[in-house]
């Protein structure tokens, strides 16, 4: 695996010299490697881009997909916007809460799974949308919840 620094330099080549456009891709890369954006991860991004950690943190803190706190090894995002809500989103979210014993925004005690409620994921014709480790599962019902969790356990 090439070093993080080198990979970030590759990302920078996609954009004109002297711009900060690689911040988002670099933060994403750092998060993919470390699971979340710790202080060290942010500093690493800043070093590679010749920016201050404060700047990189300010950008990261704006976006929902960046985790500034540790998250579980797996993430489960349940859409609870209107279109999923009209069908059965809350029942799906309730089922996850019951099975996992956590509230939305929390991580299971073993550090395995973080449950989140999220805004519209753009899958409105097949509610409820559940993104399991960022992969969309369509038309999910409360009955599907045990199978999803079993799949993560394997």
């Amino acid at each position, binding site marked *: 695996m090439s070093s993080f620094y080198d990979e970030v330099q590759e990302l920078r080549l996609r954009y004109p010299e002297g711009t900060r456009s690689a911040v988002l891709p670099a933060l994403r890369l750092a998060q993919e490697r470390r699971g979340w954006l710790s202080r060290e991860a942010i500093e690493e991004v800043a070093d590679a881009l010749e920016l201050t950690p404060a700047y990189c943190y300010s950008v990261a803190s704006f976006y929902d997909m960046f985790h500034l706190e540790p998250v579980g090894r797996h993430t489960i995002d349940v859409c609870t916007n209107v279109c999923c809500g009209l069908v059965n989103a809350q029942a799906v979210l309730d089922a996850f809460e019951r099975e996992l014993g956590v509230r939305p925004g929390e991580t299971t005690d073993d550090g395995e799974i973080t449950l989140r409620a999220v*805004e519209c994921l753009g899958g409105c014709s097949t509610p409820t949308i559940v993104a399991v480790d960022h992969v969309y599962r369509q038309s999910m019902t409360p009955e599907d919840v045990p199978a999803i969790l079993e799949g993560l356990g394997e």
Partner: protein
Amino acid sequence: MSETVVRVAEGPALVLAGYEGEPLRSLGSYRAVGGYVQLEQARTRDPQAVIQDLIESNLRGRGGAFFPTGRKASFIPTPDKIANPIYITVNADESEPGTFKDREIMLKVPHRLVEGCLIAAHAIQSKRIYIYIRGEYLEEFESLQGAIDEARGAGILAEVEIVVHRGAGAYICGEETALLESLEGKRGQPRSKPPFPAVSGVYASPTLINNVESIATIPAIFAVGPEEFAKIGAPPDSTGTRLFCLSGNVERPGVYEAPHGITPRHLIYDIGGGVPGAHTLKAVMMGGSSFPVMTPDDLDTPLDADSLGKKGYFIGSGVVTVIDERTCIVQFALRVAQFYMHESCGKCTPCRVGTRWLVQLMRAVEDGTATEADLDLTLDVCDRIIGKCLCVLGDSAAMPVASCVTKFRDEFREHLAHGGCPFGADSQLAGLFAPVDQHSHTPVAQEALV
């Protein structure tokens, strides 16, 4: 696990032309349905003539603003008049609740988007295209990147480079100037206009910004001819087809391509199979969650900007979400307000504070602690948001909430008289959890206002 229904409901097939259920992801499959022929022809023509054809087609923006695409392109200076490079940015940050069409374009006909990009690049003589795709779209990103790589490998990009830039979760980045900020590696906060992006967009250079569906419609304009295209749909202003996004309490939800001018009744009942069970239609989230809700008496209004506009509606991003009689409209207004509160970037006070205030007011109505005066206050707050900010995010909260209070005032009053929600657990949106406190963009304490 069911798949999204994507089909041409009524001809002609333009954006979905050639798609028969199997995604046209490979270059070969797209070429087999006439792909890249329009690009080859366009490249033999004078760029200005291509822009003129776009103007003649009267293609309007499919992202929600309905701005004439050709005119926008004509605002871009020609390379001899400017030292900076000329950019195209494609808005693939599809996040408007109820909208799921751009992702289907990127999944089913990704090369059509690439071809449209390259025709637009020829028209404005741009060599650099950024496609800003929302960070949550993973499969869509891979499909699109695959198409770009294959086109590059086949020499189709020629001197043009297309970079797919992934967002990281922020609805506001669908706003064009916030998108530019985000693309420049900043927090996605809208800019003051002017200067408009055509003059000073990304990297302070002239930039053409268009929605995915707008760009993916361009090859079809040249395939049928701009003059013919301008006759499709509801001319003169609403030309061509739309990928309507049908969802909610409807039998057959999906993405349906159909000409502008079909009615919501036709789309919902004939194409979509109507409301399931013995339920009845109560309201339609029309155009997206950012706009006034439609009441059943307006279901025969043609889905074109002019007809909708006369009745105070917007075509937006082609959203038609059916809400049946079980749903409490206060809960709907509350959930919509919560969304915009969460997504407000916090830059303009009327939006940052106003969206939060609307959430508190809707919550008070739902819980039965509000008074009649609070309904008037809600309309007043909406009025003090609309048109008072740098972008329309605040308006997007105010318009639907105000429309609910105005059109369903009796239902709001029932809440006041009943000391809370009369629907109980029967309403489908009852107790719906909103992610307002997770990673909110707005660093204001929830209690700060009341």
